């Protein structure tokens, strides 16, 4: 079975803290993605990675960075958390095989106080 896991389901941080959100997939997928989900806005792409050490900005990269040192792990970093980064964060990896779809993690609900 396909599996995408995220390090935390719920996280509470203070303004200015550095925050790490981790995502791990066990499917040997090359492409991985970080989305942010907000009510009324759907999912918006923050960053994505085509392969190890390769990354590209998505539609809303400001205030975020990413790291992909190993194929199975894709980390999202909030260098200095702000209250407007309170949101649900979803990680996904993409299968280019017969199923040709993105598989999502359970999400991390981040609250920045």
């Amino acid at each position, binding site marked *: 079975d396909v599996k995408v896991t995220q390090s935390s389901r719920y996280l509470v941080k203070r303004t200015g803290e550095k925050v790490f959100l981790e995502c791990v997939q066990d499917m040997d997928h090359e492409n991985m993605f970080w989305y942010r989900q907000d009510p*009324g*806005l*759907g999912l918006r*792409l923050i960053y994505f990675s*085509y392969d190890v050490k390769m990354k590209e900005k*998505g539609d809303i990269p400001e205030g975020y960075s990413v790291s992909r040192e190993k194929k199975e792990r894709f980390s999202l970093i909030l260098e200095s958390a702000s209250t407007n980064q309170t949101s649900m964060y979803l990680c996904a990896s*993409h299968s280019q095989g017969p199923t040709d779809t*993105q598989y*999502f*993690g359970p999400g991390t609900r981040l609250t920045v106080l």
Partner: protein
Amino acid sequence: AQTVTQSQPEMSVQEAETVTLSCTYDTSESDYYLFWYKQPPSRQMILVIRQEAYKQQNATENRFSVNFQKAAKSFSLKISDSQLGDAAMYFCAYRSEEYGNKLVFGAGTILRVKS
């Protein structure tokens, strides 16, 4: 830029009835993919159905089917014989080869199923 619009923030359906969720998109490309994803409350997002734009035949997956109107840029999801387990947030999404494997999502439609 590609955009996806879901004009129904919420929908309700009686158990065993049929419901249709609407989605429109804007693109200048001719080759692309369209998806419906389901996000149950507090559970992971899963793929419901996929449609390739070059295929004229509408995709179906058991009780789920789509009405794909390429010229109108419309991609609606029909759920037949609705079940309580269908209650979820449904997202329409677009992907094109030129845009890599990135998905562009609509705002979502909350589907409530009444028993």
